[in-house]
């Protein structure tokens, strides 16, 4: 029984690591800051969550702390990427040439 749980947990760990890998790949390939935030921090959040769940399968007695780490990440991670994106936008980071529309910049122009 615990053998089976171990294998399920290991598979989840593997899935999480693959998401971490894809997130980092996105971080490397994307053309500008906003897209990098998108690919980088989001996919890695899901990856870490999957790693946490997988570990909880392998060691059920660590469950509480893993749950807490997960909750904490779910709260803090989006907040930090929002703040970072906002700061990048305010400091006029060059956007990728592919960007079609930027309504935030338009509205900021109007206000100032």
């Amino acid at each position: 029984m615990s053998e089976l749980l171990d294998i399920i947990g290991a598979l989840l760990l593997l899935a999480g690591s693959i998401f971490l890998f894809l997130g980092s790949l996105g971080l490397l390939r994307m053309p500008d800051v906003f897209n990098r935030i998108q690919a980088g921090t989001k996919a890695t959040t899901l990856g870490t969550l999957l790693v946490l769940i997988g570990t909880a399968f392998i060691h059920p007695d660590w469950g509480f702390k893993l749950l807490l780490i997960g909750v904490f990440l779910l709260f803090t991670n989006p907040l930090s990427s929002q703040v970072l994106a906002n700061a990048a936008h305010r400091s006029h980071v060059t956007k990728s040439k592919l960007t079609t529309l930027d309504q935030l910049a338009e509205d900021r122009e109007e206000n100032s």
Partner: protein
Amino acid sequence: MAEILIVVAALFSAAAFVMALLRFIKGPSPADRVVAFDVLTIVAISAIIFTALAANRGIYLDVALVYALLSFLGVIVIARFLEKGF
């Protein structure tokens, strides 16, 4: 079986770490580097979890909590610095 899978997973995380580090080295603007820093801390959290699994000690997870807190705070401090908030 399970052990082999875990080792493969750790290798994937290591690849993720290397790519984030590359972005940290390259990153043209400071904001890019901060994103890479954030990803590096998140990958470090999973590295801590792998270490805890390998050493079989549940108490190592407390350190991962501190990391989760620090990645948040660090990014906010630097973001406020970039937008000249202090």
